């Protein structure tokens, strides 16, 4: 048997989490370095996966399969398709930056007792999340995926509730209350989604007699597994609801601004750039593959929800006073685009959606982490507390601007590619939807530029004067992300090559063909 | 006994009927008294009465063994145990029958009534018009006791053994529950005497009833000024709050004495002093009540 590469990519951060957690209280710095090294190791493994993956080969590659709970036919089945590989790479790429950016975020404020070890816990939890997210991108067994989907909530809950943003307006108690509110809200929303999904998972098992994605998909494809359309729809809705909460889609989005606002910025990035991607990823992998007919049935409603998300998220972002909440609402808008791309059911739309997941992860990470550096300096999340930062910290302002431009999908930066593909994909299938979604790009410009204008330009604000520019550690976070953003904006081919075949498979699953151009249709 | 053996039809003898109606009334009254009597002792005694009646009913129903057991074990042992505990806890501590839980009494009454009606309706519905009587069953092994013994040691032997184990366990459990672990070393006699010398009461505590007109243990002795001293009452009774206060009686007596002597001496001005004394007495009585509570 060959080396279980996929297991290794998930196991390494998990081991890292245990090792980091076990570091003694005094060796705080050692814990940080350990976490960083483990995340870099994971990145190397993910790189190997990316290289070993053959775009033209089988649908699922590097597969592993072991019996797990034999009585229910639950298997430990792993395998990646192009979409999985892309997201795997994104996760592995982002975590080192998240760790670097959060280097001091979990330092104990004062040494309460020698046994108090928040730092170790913080980094261990981050690595734990990484392990689970990576494994969920690899799981091809529905039950295994479900377990990971839910288990992820545990470390996330502690990350949100246990390590708050130190820059808050109110008193400590007030902040703690808001933080625990945010954490509980996050947990309850996702748990509610997850429980409904559990019902659907069980229902699927009852109907299909198996949890294996490939088996069920194959059975569906060759007609040996007939599903009544009402059954299929209910199961689809069960799955979709959970993913829509996670993604988050309007109107299930309200947990995200709270969670992102109250969590530390690295954790906020973790939420929106990594964990939430599991939701949209699962829509592509599970909803479309397992329930193609129901997916098509639900498409009109979902497209409308996605459109509302796009416009609504953007408008709300414009109205925010808190930097992090603004970015959170911007993310909601972007998730709307992703869902739009997935359910447009065209090659361009789905490729675009997959790229969008990756690019949104990168761009939000860049914007949010730099915003985090800014917030740490001033100790406030309110936009009104800033002004003229550009004058005192030009590099910070510059990187912030680039992050912002990526968020508004400026051509030349990676998100443009994906956003345009999504729009084209949506437009070619549903022109009106495409046109309305295009409004989103104007609104994106509005919230990004308003944010930039109010924080970075104008006269130098109060308490901004002595603000230091980015330090080496912070540059080590911002610059590579920007470099990747530019690279993928100019040359996204390595990604599209990997993603395209997977998208074609999905298109076959749902039995959809791209609409023909009018000219060729006329011929 | 012959009537019992013969009673294989639908009706019993008239004698039994008379017995039933007479004793049944007693049983119900006893049960009601158990529930309604203010003092636990009275409840216990009423319950004992009901149980004896039931024993008679058992006998009448041909359950001779059980009838005897009922008298010996239930009435004799269990009820006495109850009485012991009542004594331990305090005979006089009467329950106030005032309900503290809102709506509890109404709910209880409604439930009881509904339950009773339903139960009786249920029994009425059941087709129980004929019955076999125990004659044959008792006779099979040569009597009721033998019949029971046969069953207990054959068919129900395991249940029997297990109940034995249960009884042992219950005994141990009761010991465990009532046993109080000594948390500190017992004081030696020497230490106790030293302690006594150091305390403010070197001489023996005053005996109850000193300067009083009672010699009951639960009545505080009066000090020379007529006020009761709790020190004269046993510590246990003090803790339980079972001190009877008779100071008001003695004060009333004093008052009567004063009045009489006043009348005799023709003093009018004594009213003031009397009034004063009266109020003082009332205050004292109230204090005593509060202490009792």
């Amino acid at each position: 048997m060959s080396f279980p590469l996929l297991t290794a990519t998930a196991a390494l951060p998990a081991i890292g989490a245990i090792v980091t957690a076990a570091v003694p209280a005094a060796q705080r710095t050692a814990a940080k370095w350990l976490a960083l090294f483990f995340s870099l190791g994971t990145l190397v493994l993910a790189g190997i996966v990316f290289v070993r993956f053959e775009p033209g080969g089988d649908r699922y590659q590097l597969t592993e399969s072991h019996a797990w709970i034999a009585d229910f036919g639950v298997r430990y089945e792993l395998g990646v398709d192009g979409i999985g590989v892309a997201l795997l790479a994104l996760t592995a790429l982002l975590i080192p930056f998240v760790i670097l950016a959060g280097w001091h975020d979990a330092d104990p404020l004062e040494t309460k007792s020698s046994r108090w070890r928040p730092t170790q816990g913080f980094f261990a939890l981050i690595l734990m999340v990484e392990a689970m997210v990576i494994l969920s991108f690899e799981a091809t067994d529905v039950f295994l995926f479900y377990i990971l989907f839910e288990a992820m909530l545990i470390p996330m809950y502690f990350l949100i509730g246990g390590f708050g943003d130190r820059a808050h307006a109110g008193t400590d108690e007030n902040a703690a209350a808001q933080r625990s509110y945010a954490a509980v809200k996050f947990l309850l929303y996702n748990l509610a989604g997850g429980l409904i999904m559990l019902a659907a998972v069980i229902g699927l098992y009852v109907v299909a007699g198996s949890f294996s994605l490939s088996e069920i998909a194959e059975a569906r494809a060759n007609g040996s597994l007939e599903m009544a359309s009402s059954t299929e729809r209910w199961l689809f809705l069960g799955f979709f609801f959970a993913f829509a909460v996670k993604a988050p889609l309007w109107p299930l989005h309200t947990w995200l601004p709270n969670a992102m606002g109250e969590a530390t910025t690295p954790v906020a990035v973790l939420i929106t750039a990594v964990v939430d991607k599991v939701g949209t990823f699962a829509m592509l992998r599970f909803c479309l593959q397992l329930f193609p007919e129901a997916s098509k049935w639900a498409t009109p409603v979902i497209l409308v929800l996605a459109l509302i998300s796009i416009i609504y998220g953007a408008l709300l972002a414009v109205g925010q006073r808190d930097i992090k909440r603004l970015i959170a609402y911007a993310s909601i808008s972007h998730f709307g685009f992703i869902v739009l791309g997935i359910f447009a059911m065209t090659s361009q739309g789905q490729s675009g959606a997959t790229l969008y997941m990756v690019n949104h992860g990168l761009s939000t990470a860049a914007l949010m982490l730099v915003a985090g550096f800014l917030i740490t300096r001033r100790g406030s999340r309110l936009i009104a507390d800033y002004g003229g930062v550009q004058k005192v910290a030009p590099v910070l302002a510059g990187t912030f601007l680039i992050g912002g431009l990526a968020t508004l999908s400026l051509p030349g930066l990676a998100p443009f590619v994906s956003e345009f593909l999504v729009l084209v994909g949506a437009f070619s299938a549903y022109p009106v939807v495409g046109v309305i979604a295009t409004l989103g790009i104007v609104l994106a410009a509005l919230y990004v530029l308003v944010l930039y204008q109010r924080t970075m330009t104008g006269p130098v604000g109060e308490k901004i004067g002595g603000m230091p520019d980015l330090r080496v550690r912070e540059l080590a976070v911002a610059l590579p992300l920007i470099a990747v953003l530019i690279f993928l904006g100019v040359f996204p081919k390595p990604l599209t090559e990997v993603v395209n075949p997977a998208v074609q498979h999905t298109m076959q699953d749902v039995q959809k063909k791209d609409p023909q151009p009018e000219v060729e249709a006329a011929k | 006994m012959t009537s019992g053996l013969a009673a294989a039809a639908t009706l019993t003898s008239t004698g039994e009927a008379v017995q039933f109606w007479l004793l049944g009334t007693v049983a119900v009254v006893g049960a009601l008294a158990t529930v309604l009597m203010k003092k636990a002792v009275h409840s216990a005694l009423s319950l004992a009465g009901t149980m004896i009646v039931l024993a008679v009913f058992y006998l009448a129903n041909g359950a001779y063994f059980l009838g005897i057991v009922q008298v010996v074990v239930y009435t004799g042992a269990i009820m006495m145990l109850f009485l012991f505990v009542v004594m331990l806890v305090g005979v006089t501590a009467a329950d106030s029958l005032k309900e503290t839980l809102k709506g509890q009494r109404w709910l209880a009454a409604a439930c009881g009534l509904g339950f009773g009606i339903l139960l009786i309706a249920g029994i009425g519905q059941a087709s129980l018009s004929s019955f076999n009587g125990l004659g044959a069953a008792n006779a099979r092994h040569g009597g009721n006791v033998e019949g029971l013994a046969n069953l207990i040691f054959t068919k129900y032997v395991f249940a029997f053994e297990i109940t034995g184990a249960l009884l042992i366990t219950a005994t141990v459990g009761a010991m465990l529950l009532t046993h109080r672990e000594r948390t500190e070393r017992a004081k030696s006699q020497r230490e106790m005497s030293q302690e006594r010398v150091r305390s403010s009461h070197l001489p023996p505590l005053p005996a109850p009833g000193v300067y009083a007109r009672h010699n009951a243990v639960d009545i505080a002795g009066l000090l020379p000024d007529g006020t009761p001293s709790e020190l004269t009452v046993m510590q246990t009774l003090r803790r339980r709050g079972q001190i009877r206060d008779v100071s008001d009686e003695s004060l009333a007596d004093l008052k009567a004495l004063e009045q009489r002597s006043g009348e005799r001496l023709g003093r009018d001005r004594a009213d003031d002093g009397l009034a004063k004394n009266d109020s003082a007495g009332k205050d004292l009585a109230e204090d005593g009540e509060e202490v009792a509570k």
Partner: protein
Amino acid sequence: MNPVNYLYLAALLFTIGASGVLIRRNAIVVFMCIELMLNACNLTLVAFSRMHGNLDGQIIAFFTMVVAAAEVVVGLAIIVSLFRSRHSASVDDASLMKL
């Protein structure tokens, strides 16, 4: 007389006992009421035993007595120790079960 009357009597006693449990606050009296209920049950069993013409009902009544004895022993022990710690035998004083 129809022996069913024994059943009616038992039902009546049982109901009285049950109401007593609900109404009284003194734990000892509550206990007595429970005993009353058990006795009512025993009477039923004995009556049924006679109706069916076999002794099994009496056996069960016998067991009930034994169990009742054990229960009384333990229950009274609990009351005694409760009284020791609280100086009260009221069941309402022990209301720690909420929340």
